[in-house]
């Protein structure tokens, strides 16, 4: 004990700012963020404050707005469900197997990010309309996609394809194969190994990916306006209703709906960040 106290007291180590340009770079960053991001977002929030809770509530609880929120949430849920399964499958196949064309398939997963949403919407609409490649098959079967809720879900699913794949992929790559081998040695069947060993390891990342996919689907606009047909109460999404209110110069109506969407986005951002934090801690544990 005396040895510890006998140590000479060192001057407190302070990280001196050795590198130059701190004030300049931080100043530029803050100024730009304030002008480009913060002030415009504050303008929206101020509009909400200005209209007051009563008016805000009247707008967002109007039947047409409620229908739009329901359509948006339902379609986003369908799209996310699809991507939860498809994304997991793609991540698994891309990490675990080697086959001809694998690199191309991997690159294909980035297409929905790179492709402008309007272009994706145009192409999907044409593909699924009666004389398109897919529509020609689906229409005679009595499955219309264009101008339906399913069409909205298809557009949302397409634009959010990469989220689940790209969050699960690195976790699967990092997994220690010894865990699975140990389970097999102990007599577990392949499906049991997957559900008891592999799936719990990738669960946080998978959920984080699904959350971002869902958030992206709620805010998607470009791809949907083409395929939805935009009928009030039937295929009108919340973002589009806000857009229509703007065109009618009803700025309160647009701002109220936009605020609800903003609220959704921020809550989902928080959830996704928490999940990712959980995922990174989890990853350390299973490595």
């Amino acid at each position: 004990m005396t040895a510890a106290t006998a140590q000479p007291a060192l001057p407190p180590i302070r990280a001196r700012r050795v590198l130059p340009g701190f004030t300049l770079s931080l100043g530029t960053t803050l100024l730009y963020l304030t002008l480009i991001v913060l002030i415009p977002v504050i303008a929206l929030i101020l509009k909400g404050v200005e209209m007051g809770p009563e008016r805000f509530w009247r707008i967002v609880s109007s039947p047409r707005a409620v229908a739009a929120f329901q359509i948006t949430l339902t379609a986003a849920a369908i799209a996310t469900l699809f991507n939860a399964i498809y994304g997991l499958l793609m991540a698994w196949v891309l990490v675990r197997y080697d086959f001809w064309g694998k690199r191309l398939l991997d690159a294909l997963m980035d297409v929905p990010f790179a492709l402008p949403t309007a272009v994706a919407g145009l192409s999907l609409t044409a593909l699924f309309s009666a004389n398109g490649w897919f529509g020609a098959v689906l229409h005679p079967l009595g499955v219309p996609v264009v101008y339906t809720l399913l069409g909205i879900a298809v557009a949302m699913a397409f634009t959010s394809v990469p989220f689940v794949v790209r969050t699960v992929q690195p976790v699967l790559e990092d997994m220690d194969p010894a865990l699975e081998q140990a389970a097999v040695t102990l007599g577990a069947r392949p499906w049991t190994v997957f559900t008891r060993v592999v799936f719990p390891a990738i669960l946080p990342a998978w959920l984080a990916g699904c959350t971002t996919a869902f958030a992206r689907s709620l805010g998607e606009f470009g791809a949907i306006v083409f395929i939805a047909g935009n009928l009030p109460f039937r295929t009108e999404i919340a973002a589009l209703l806000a857009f229509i209110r703007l065109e009618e110069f009803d700025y309160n109506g647009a701002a109220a709906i936009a605020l609800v969407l903003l609220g959704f986005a921020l809550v989902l951002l928080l959830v996704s960040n928490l999940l990712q934090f959980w995922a990174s801690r989890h990853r350390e544990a299973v490595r």
Partner: protein
Amino acid sequence: MTATATHLPGRSRRAERTLIGVAVSLSLLFVAAPLAYIFVRAFSQGWQVYAANILHPMTLHAIWLTTITAIVVVPVNVAFGIAAAWAVAKHRFPGRGILVTMIEIPFSISPIIAGICYLLLYGRQGLLGPWLRAQDIQVMFALPGIILVTMFVTAPFVAREVLPLMQAQGTEQEQAAVTLGASGWQVFRRVTLPNIKWALLYGAVLCTARAVGEFGGVSVVSGNIRGQTNTLPLHVELLFNDLNAVGAFAAASTLTLIALVALVVKAALEGKRG
């Protein structure tokens, strides 16, 4: 080991073949087909019609407007990305975490909400509306509005590629350079820049692809004035609404080419980015 390997999940021959088969067919149908269909439809009436569609004055104007927007937005966001990464990765200060989250915020906000925010700020009924009108400055329904919204939407792209790399590289090299008497600018140009150049290039390419394809936000602030504030993605919508599908696909094909270039650059830089 080979005995147990086939008992690992998905390791049996049959499971492997089935899963690869399902994955490939789904991806071909769901991702590759929409991509291929753009070119199939764009060229469905031959090269000459395609060329005529692209060379139509309205389309050329849209291409021009989109190009101008990207030329302004991308360098600004490259500069912002470098500044943000330099501040966050090379220095310690309270609130760094909050700053990183703030940089990422435009990713979580739907572009259409961004557009509404800008309209509420700069529009006629907006907060700055009366002042702007007194100064006779037109921001909304004009090029400045389009550029501003595109800046908002694409702000994080460069920072997000450069920041993690700079953080991983630490500050030792820069500190050594400073100790040897290099000025701030010399440190950046000779030490930092060579280390981050590929990530920077990749971020710039992503930013360009996104800036060029921006639709929702621009659609709010542009006012869709034909031949004046119609960017290329808006022009695609306009042609589609005019029931000129082949023209819409021709215009869309140019945007698709830019997207494909971005993907090729990504593939080429894979590994180089470190």
